[in-house]
């Protein structure tokens, strides 16, 4: 049963990646285009509505008359880009920090970084991201000549959330390697520390952190959507799955269950597929693994 689930997860992930990459090619309309039922009147929210100009919207429109299907496609794209890039960046950062602290175990640098990480870990899950996005605001920040986009702010916040635990994992797998003779041999040859860490040490310590980061993809989707849901996502009119879900509360009184169901289900499906796939990858790479509370 386990293998079938993993295959299912892989298929779902592939489909979603396809949607994210090729979405703009097959999305029926622009995500910001507002349709009207008649001149001056926005489309009613319903499944399969037809506009004044004759377009048929497969999943109807949102409260502003925008095509729901197109927004879902672009929203998936936004959510996936944010989640994947934040996990990727966090993993890279964790590999650098973890291998350095592991190599310099017990040094002041290690001590400072690890204390900081302990403090950041006090705010688990997406709380830290909420706090950081709140502090930076979602308008974008000017850093010298560059102005960050709200998406970048969210990615930064998520990187802050994921890096601490990934760094711990990387440090944990680096420490035993750092004491092995081939590292001593490199030191004896007069190899500079940066080279030892980058070429000798880090490549031998990657398995654990990569396993963990694949299981974090589900969490990243969850967190991105959560932020969007709280109104801390990308700015309008950019769609994002959590944001779309939050707006469905506006249609409550129309009793359109379908509309409430779809965005949430999409998020669940993504989280499900990523976690199952992550578990599968882990089982292949690390057969002795046991589920731990640190994974959530």
């Amino acid at each position: 049963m386990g293998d079938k689930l993993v295959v299912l997860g892989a298929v779902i992930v592939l489909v979603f990646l396809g949607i994210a990459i090729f979405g703009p090619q097959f999305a029926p309309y622009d995500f910001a285009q507002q349709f009207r039922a008649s001149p001056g009147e926005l489309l009613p929210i319903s499944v399969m509505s037809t506009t004044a100009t004759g377009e048929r919207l497969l999943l109807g429109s949102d409260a502003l008359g925008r095509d729901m299907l197109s927004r879902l496609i672009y929203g998936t794209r936004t959510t996936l880009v944010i989640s994947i890039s934040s996990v990727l960046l966090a993993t890279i950062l964790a590999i650098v920090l973890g291998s350095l602290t592991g190599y310099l175990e017990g040094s002041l640098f290690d001590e400072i970084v690890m204390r900081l990480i302990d403090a950041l870990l006090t705010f688990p899950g997406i709380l830290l991201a909420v706090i950081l996005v709140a502090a930076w605001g979602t308008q974008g920040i000017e850093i010298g000549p560059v102005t960050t986009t709200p998406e970048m702010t969210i990615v930064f916040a998520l990187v802050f959330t994921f890096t601490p635990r990934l760094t711990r994992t990387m440090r944990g797998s680096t420490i035993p390697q750092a004491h092995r003779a081939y590292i001593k041999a490199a030191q004896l040859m007069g190899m500079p520390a940066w080279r030892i860490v980058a070429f000798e040490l880090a490549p031998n310590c990657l398995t654990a952190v990569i396993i963990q980061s694949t299981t974090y993809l589900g969490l990243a989707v969850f967190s991105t959507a959560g932020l969007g849901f709280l109104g801390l996502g990308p700015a309008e009119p950019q769609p994002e799955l959590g944001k779309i879900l939050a707006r469905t509360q506006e249609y409550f009184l129309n009793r359109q269950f379908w509309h409430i169901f779809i965005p949430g289900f999409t998020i669940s499906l993504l989280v499900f597929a990523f976690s199952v796939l992550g578990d599968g990858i882990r089982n292949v790479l690390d057969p002795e693994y046991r589920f731990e509370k640190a994974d959530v």
Partner: protein
Amino acid sequence: MVDRTSALNKIMSLLKYIGRRIVSAIPTLILITFLSFGLLYITPGGPVEALAGIFGTQEQKERIRQELGLNDPLHVQYLRWVGGVLSGDFGEMIVMAPGTPIAEMLRKPLLATFWLTIAGALIALTLGLAIGALSAIKPNSWLDSLSRVISIATYSVPDFWLAIILLFVFGVIFRYRWAISGQIDFSRNIVFSLQSLILPAIALGLAKAGIVARITRGELFDVQNKSFIQFERIMGLPRWVVIKDMLHNGILPIVTVLGYTIGLIFRGTFLVEVVFGVPGIGLFLVRAAKTQEYALLQTLVLCIGSVFILINLLTDILYGVLDPRVRS
């Protein structure tokens, strides 16, 4: 006599352990104050802009500048801020309720979130422990498979979506007034508050039950595979004896699960609070975030950090009470 001294020794070692735990929590607490204090300084506009907010008047800005003493060195500013916090002065609200001291506004949200956490944790623990224990007793049975499916399903479903669906079904379709009120305030109307608590707690509890079940299964699975339990099995002892011994040895894992679940639920409350409009810490936090009410945000960061430290501390202490081995 001998018993009495040994009992005294036990209590002493326990007290020492508790003392050590408390002391070891202090550095983390200090770092949390750094984070919370530093929050103002990482904002795009700097602390004055941040505190005054978009609607701040020139007058307010001037007063804030004076209060913060921005010309002083950073550590002086920090110490002044910590001094304020220690004497219960968290600053004033500027956007949401101008002029109100934050300390006054904190009590009710803290209580609401507290009750919501307790109720949610109760549901998650009841379901999670039951499912987890059942699947640990009979691994690889249909029960285990079923519980695994349930676990994965609830793990994947975001709590905020579950909350929306519950709200839709009970509030919109069945039109239960209590379902949509979100008013959890036991000082006013106990029955109504209890009713309002039901749906948010279910949303939280259901969404986290899967994770709790998985952890329970993992922890109990270890106990079960210990050699003496295996021995009892081979000896053909009645099943209830085996289960009793397992539970006796499983109490530590269950404490782990307990502490963890409370943290998990507390973390989940803020999204659910937003959906149901429960005036708790989470809703407060999100509103502070949206209106950029930084003094409040700072306070909440401090509060939430302290609560997590407290939960970890209590779990550790409970661990020490139950298992003398961890004390050393």
